């Protein structure tokens, strides 16, 4: 049992990542504030990155995982920029960033 807890391995990182992921998902699901949702997305992306790096370190033996992590970071940056721009746009139009108020896509 000691070995399991103290010998830090792949699973430990995966569990951390899982917890961050679940928290991010929770954040995304329950927030009414659009920026809050964006925060949750960032959490999710980070959890994915932890997985990449962990697998890269423990399993693959090459840099593919790290490369992908960098791509994800890049995407996160792009996503944050666009997302926030949209949030600002929504704010301008609806005077609110409450997602419940924004339902003009309703079919």
């Amino acid at each position, binding site marked *: 049992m000691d070995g399991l*807890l*103290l*010998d*830090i391995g*792949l*699973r*430990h990182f995966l*569990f*951390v990542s*899982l*917890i*961050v992921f*679940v*928290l*991010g*998902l*929770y*954040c995304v*699901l*329950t*927030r*009414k504030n659009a*920026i809050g949702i*964006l*925060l*949750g997305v*960032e*959490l999710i992306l*980070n959890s994915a990155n932890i997985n990449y*790096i*962990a697998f*890269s*370190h*423990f*399993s693959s033996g090459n*840099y593919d995982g*790290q*490369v992908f*992590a*960098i*791509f994800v*970071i*890049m*995407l*996160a*940056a*792009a*996503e*944050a*920029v*666009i997302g*926030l*721009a949209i*949030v*600002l*746009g929504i*704010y301008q139009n609806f005077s*609110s960033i409450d997602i*419940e108020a924004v339902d*003009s896509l309703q079919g």
Partner: protein
Amino acid sequence: MPLEALVFYLLAALTIGSALIVALSHNLVYSAFALLGTFMGVAGLYALLAADFVAVIQVMLYIGGILVLILFAVMLTHRIADVDVSNRTVGRIPAVLILGVVGTVMGVCIGTAEWVQHAEPMVEPTTFGIGEAFLGPYILPFELASVVLLVALIGAVVVSRKELRGPMADG
């Protein structure tokens, strides 16, 4: 307790703890600041995983870039119309239920799967290897990424332009 385990648990606690604040805090500003802790913790985890380059990128980009951006947005929306910087949550019970299922299943997977593990995790400076990878097999995605960033840049400018808001406001 070995040093490595200690460091890991500290970093994990930092990460998860601040993530909890992000997810649960009622104040958006707190949430945003707590994200700082998460990012730092994750960066630490990267370093622990011998991914020095990514860790540095994480600090620079996430903390220096994205987080600042988010904080600006929070402040900006706060200031413009002076609305309550609330961070109310909705539908917690179903969310918890669903996430319970997801989390459990994934946890079971993580716990039971036979992960491929190299006997000797590599520990070496990674910058050279990553550079090789980017300019070698990943040259096309790498170039595409620059295009994507450019497009995102232009897109953000276009979306937040004043003229576009007219028709949308009418609709």
